[in-house]
């Protein structure tokens, strides 16, 4: 495991702590790991490239 130090908005931190306190996660660190894992899954570089190229295609050659 890699240890990092960063700054996040207070409300995000409180939200993560609340989830852990309610028993959904062992601690807030697990919340952050899970959040980042999900973000990375939905932000695959190839997918985002395709979204931009699709936008350009629509922009130049769409019919609306």
């Amino acid at each position, binding site marked *: 495991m890699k240890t990092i130090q960063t700054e996040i908005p207070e409300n995000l931190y409180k939200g993560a702590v609340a989830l852990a306190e309610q028993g959904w996660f062992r601690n807030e660190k697990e919340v952050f790991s899970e*959040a980042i894992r*999900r*973000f990375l899954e*939905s*932000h695959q*570089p190839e*997918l*985002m*490239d395709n*979204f*931009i190229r*699709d*936008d*350009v295609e*629509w*922009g*130049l*050659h*769409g019919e*609306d």
Partner: protein
Amino acid sequence: MAKIRSNTVVVCDAGPLIHLDEVGHLQLLADFKKVIVPHGVRREVNNHRRISFEEADISWSLVKAVFPLEQSVKTICNLFSLDAGEKESLSLLNNEPDAIFLTDDAAARIVAIKLGYRVHGTIGVLVRAIRRDLLNPEEVADALQRIRDVSTLYIKNSLLQEVITKVKQEQR
């Protein structure tokens, strides 16, 4: 500006509103027949930018009502950690299936595509301005450059430069 407004209705997520405003081209939304902004999106935008939603040329439709999402859609939204505004947008699209969903959020885009909706983002709206005769290619290239310089929309620089090159070729 194109003489005749497009017949296209758009449902807007916060990203394109914020990013178009950041690069000084929010008025491009005036080309759409209706710009639907859910209450949650408006709230999110106002946390970042001072957009009045009173720009006379833009056909704003500020919608407070939230229609219930099917349980399966709710589950997908939760799996992708979509925020309140994005969920409201998807519920509105259920009633406006021909509308285009404007979002710069990859997760929201994936979900909306899976649900069968047309989805585009800030880059698409900017490039579309050429086809709609709202901006010339040079102006759009400038706006794209400003995406990197002044906006909070993050795009891989090599891809952005590729888009700028393609846009500039439109004027030849």
